[in-house]
C-alpha cells in the first residue's frame, strides 16, 4: 500500500520535472528500487553524499556536447595538391608540405572553402566574410609539423542550428523535433594515421591522411542523452551527404564524433566533463554516451569526483577507458598562422567589379545552388504522397530507398499509402536480412510495380503476393506474371468453382456448420481457413466469407 502511494508520488514528481524542463531525467536505478520497498521513503543507505532532493532521491541531468569532424569530399588536400583517397599504399599521397619539410607553404583549396560555406548555409549559420587561420600546437608522431592549422579565433561560420527528430514515448512511436545550436564551423587539417605495433614497441606512421581538409562542427551542449546525440549525428550525416560536401561515412573515418559528457543536478552548476573519443558508428555513439553518463552518476553517488580527462570507448567491452596519452588539460598555445592572410568571402553586394572570379567565393551564388535538404524532402514526401512523417524518415534514412519508392509509385496504380507498406515492411525487411543496399536489390522497382498492379487488379490475393515476392527475391529474372502462372497463384475467378469448393468444405465439416448456425461466429473463420487451404491460397477471403454466410443463412 505504502509502495503504491510512493510510486504515484514519485511518478507525479517526475512528470512535473519533465513538464517544466522537457528534459529526460535520469535517476539511479538502484535508488528507485529502494524507494519501492514498502514502508520506507528515505530508508537504507543512500550512497555517498548526493544531496537530499524532495522525497529523498535527487535526479541527475546529463549534458552532452558534440564535436564532429567531417572530412571534406575534394580531389586534393586542404593546403597542398596531393590526392585524397581512402585506401592507398602508405605514404604515397604525401607532398613535401604534408610531410612538413622546411621551405614549404600552405595554399588553400577553393573547393574546401565552398564546402564549408555550403555546410554553414545548410545549418543556418552566419558566414563570416573575414575568417582567420591559427596554429594549434601539440606533439604527436602523426602531426609532422608539430602544429595543426585550424580556425580558432574567427571561423568560417558561427551561430547555427540543427533540427533533428527522434522517437519518444513508451512505444517509440511519437516523433518529436529537437534543435541543437551550432557554435561554429571551421576548416582545419587532418593528422596522419598511426598504427600501433605493441609487439615491437613502435608506431608506424602513414601520412596519406595528413593535411586532408576537415570541417569541425562544434555543437553547444544542448543534448542530454545518447539517443539524442545519435539522432543529431544521423541528421548531420544526411545533410552532408545531400550537399555533397562530405561523404560522411563513419566506418571509413570520414565522420568522427567526440562527445563531451557531464552530469549535474537540475538547478545546480554544470559538472566536470569528460571527453569520449574513438567512436566508430552512430550506434556506438549512443552506447558510449549512455555508459559514460551512468559511470559518472555512479562515481558521484559513491562520493568520488569526476576527473576532467579524455576517455576512449572500447566497443568490444562497451565501456570507456582513460586514455594514457592525454592526461591533464592540454595547452595548445594558439597563435595566428603567419603564412596565411585572412580569408575573405564575398556576396553579391560586396563583390568588387573586376576580380578574377576564380579567386572569389560568392556566398549568394552558393546559397542559390543549395540542393533540397533532408527536412525539406521529408515534408515534400508527406505532402505529395500522403505518407506518415515516420515513414518519410525511414525512406530518407536508407540510401536510394526514396527514389525506389517514387519509381514504384509512378509505375503502379496502387495508392502510395499502401505502397509504402510494401516498401517498408517487405522490401526493407528482405534487404536487411540479406544485408544488401537498395542498389544491390534483386527486385527492381519495375518488378515490384508489376506485382503491386496484379494485387491491385484483384488477380491475386495478398498472401499470394507475398509468395510471389519471395520468389522474385531469388533474382531468377522471372516477372511476377510468370511466377503467378507457374505456381498457379491466381485467385479463382470462376464463381461456380468457388461455390462448389465452399459446398464441399461445408459438407465435410457438419459440426462446424451446426456451431455457426447456433450463433458461434468464430467458427466461421475456421471454415474460411479450410477453404483457403483447399484452394491453396487462391481464394479471396472476402468473397469466401460472403459465400459461406450466404450458404449458412439458407
Amino acid at each position, binding site marked *: 500500500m505504502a509502495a503504491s502511494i510512493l510510486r504515484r508520488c514519485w511518478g507525479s514528481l517526475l512528470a512535473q520535472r519533465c513538464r517544466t524542463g522537457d528534459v529526460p531525467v535520469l535517476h539511479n536505478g538502484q535508488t528507485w528500487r529502494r524507494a519501492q520497498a514498502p514502508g520506507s521513503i528515505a530508508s537504507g543507505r543512500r550512497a555517498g553524499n548526493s544531496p537530499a532532493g524532495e522525497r529523498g532521491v535527487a535526479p541527475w541531468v546529463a549534458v552532452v556536447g558534440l564535436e564532429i569532424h567531417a572530412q571534406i569530399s*575534394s*580531389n*586534393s588536400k586542404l593546403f*597542398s*595538391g*596531393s*590526392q585524397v583517397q581512402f585506401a592507398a*599504399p*602508405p*605514404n*604515397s*599521397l*604525401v*607532398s*613535401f608540405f604534408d*610531410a612538413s*619539410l622546411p621551405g614549404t607553404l600552405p*595554399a*588553400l*583549396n*577553393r*573547393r*574546401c*572553402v565552398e564546402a564549408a560555406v555550403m555546410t554553414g548555409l545548410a545549418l543556418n549559420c552566419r558566414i563570416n566574410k573575414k575568417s*582567420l587561420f591559427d596554429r594549434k*600546437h601539440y*606533439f*604527436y*608522431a*602523426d602531426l609532422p609539423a608539430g602544429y595543426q592549422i585550424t580556425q580558432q579565433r574567427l571561423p568560417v561560420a558561427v551561430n547555427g542550428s540543427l533540427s533533428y527528430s527522434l522517437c519518444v514515448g513508451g512505444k517509440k512511436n511519437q516523433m518529436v523535433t529537437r534543435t541543437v545550436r551550432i557554435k561554429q564551423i571551421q576548416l582545419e587539417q587532418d593528422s596522419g594515421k*598511426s*598504427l*600501433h*605495433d*605493441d609487439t615491437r*614497441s*613502435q*608506431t*608506424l*606512421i*602513414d*601520412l596519406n591522411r595528413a593535411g586532408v581538409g576537415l570541417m569541425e562542427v562544434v555543437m553547444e551542449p544542448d543534448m542530454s542523452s545518447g539517443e539524442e546525440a545519435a539522432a543529431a549525428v544521423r541528421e548531420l550525416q544526411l545533410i552532408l551527404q545531400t550537399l555533397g560536401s562530405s561523404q560522411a561515412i563513419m566506418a571509413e573515418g570520414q565522420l568522427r564524433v567526440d562527445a563531451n559528457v557531464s552530469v549535474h543536478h537540475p538547478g545546480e552548476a554544470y559538472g566536470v566533463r569528460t571527453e569520449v573519443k574513438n567512436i566508430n558508428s552512430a550506434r556506438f555513439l549512443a552506447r558510449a554516451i549512455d555508459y559514460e553518463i551512468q559511470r559518472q552518476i555512479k562515481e558521484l553517488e559513491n562520493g568520488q569526483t569526476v576527473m576532467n580527462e579524455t576517455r576512449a570507448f572500447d566497443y568490444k567491452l562497451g565501456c570507456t577507458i582513460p586514455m*594514457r*596519452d592525454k*592526461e591533464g588539460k592540454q*595547452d595548445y*598555445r594558439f597563435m*595566428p*598562422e*603567419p603564412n*596565411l*592572410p*585572412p*580569408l*575573405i568571402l564575398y556576396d553579391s553586394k560586396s563583390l568588387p567589379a573586376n576580380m578574377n572570379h*576564380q*579567386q572569389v*567565393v560568392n556566398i549568394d551564388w552558393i546559397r542559390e545552388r543549395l540542393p533540397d535538404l533532408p527536412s525539406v524532402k521529408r515534408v515534400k514526401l508527406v505532402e505529395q504522397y500522403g505518407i506518415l512523417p515516420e515513414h518519410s524518415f525511414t525512406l530518407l534514412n536508407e540510401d536510394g530507398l526514396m527514389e525506389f519508392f517514387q519509381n514504384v509509385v509512378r509505375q503502379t496504380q496502387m495508392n502510395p499509402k499502401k505502397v509504402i507498406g510494401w516498401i517498408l515492411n517487405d522490401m526493407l525487411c528482405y534487404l536487411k536480412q540479406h544485408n544488401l543496399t537498395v542498389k544491390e536489390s534483386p527486385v527492381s522497382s519495375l518488378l515490384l510495380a508489376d506485382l503491386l498492379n496484379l494485387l491491385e487488379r484483384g488477380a491475386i490475393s495478398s498472401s499470394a503476393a507475398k509468395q510471389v515476392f519471395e520468389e522474385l527475391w531469388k533474382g531468377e529474372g522471372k516477372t511476377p506474371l510468370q511466377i503467378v502462372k507457374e505456381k498457379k497463384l491466381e485467385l479463382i475467378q470462376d464463381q461456380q468453382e468457388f461455390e462448389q469448393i465452399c459446398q464441399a468444405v461445408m459438407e465435410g465439416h457438419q459440426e462446424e456448420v451446426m456451431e455457426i448456425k447456433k450463433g458461434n461466429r468464430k467458427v466461421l473463420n475456421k471454415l474460411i481457413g479450410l477453404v483457403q487451404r483447399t484452394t491453396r491460397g487462391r481464394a479471396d477471403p472476402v468473397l469466401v466469407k460472403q459465400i459461406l454466410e450466404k450458404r449458412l443463412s439458407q
Partner: protein
Amino acid sequence: MWALRFSRYIRGAPLGGGSHWAGLSLGSRFTQAASGRSDSRQEAAGDPRQRGLVRPRSYRGGVYQNPTWQHVEQRPLPQKKVTVEVLDHLERLALVDFRDWEGVQRLEKAIQFADQLHAVNTEGVEPMDSVLEDRCLYLREDNITEGTCTEELLRNARETVEEYFIAPPGNIPLPKLEGRDTFLQVSE
C-alpha cells in the same frame, strides 16, 4: 644658389633639434614630395614656414636614408620573475631544456625586451593578423598536382618499415618535477 642650399643638408647634419625629430610631420611632407618633386621644390622655396626646416633629400624613391622614429625613454619596466611552475610547464609543453639558471636569465631578458611593446599606446588600433596585410588569400583550384614521391620522403627517415615511418609508441610525457633530474628541483 639652389644647389648650395641643398648640399648643406645632404651632409647629414643633425636636423631639427636634439635627437628628436617629428617623424610624422616629416612623413606627410615626404608623401607630397613623392607625388610631385618639382612642385614641392617650388613650394618649398616660396613658403616661409619651410625655410630653415629640413628638406628631406634623404627621401629618395621610397626609401628613407635616415631613421625617422622617436626615441622612447627607457622607463624601467617591472622585472618579472619566472616561477618554477611556469618553467616546468614550458619544459613539458615545448620540450625545451633550460639546462641551468643562465638559460632562465636569458629567458627573462627576452621577456623584458618584448615587454617594451607595452610602451606603445594601442587603444583603438585593430590587432594585425598578418604582415601580408591587404593581400588576398590565394585560392588554389582543386586539382591533384603533387604527391607520389614516397621514396624521396622515406629517404629522410633513419628507420622505415614497408614504406611506413617509425615512431616511438605514443607520447612519452616528461616525468613530473619530483621525478626528474633537473636544476629546477635543486633550487627549491
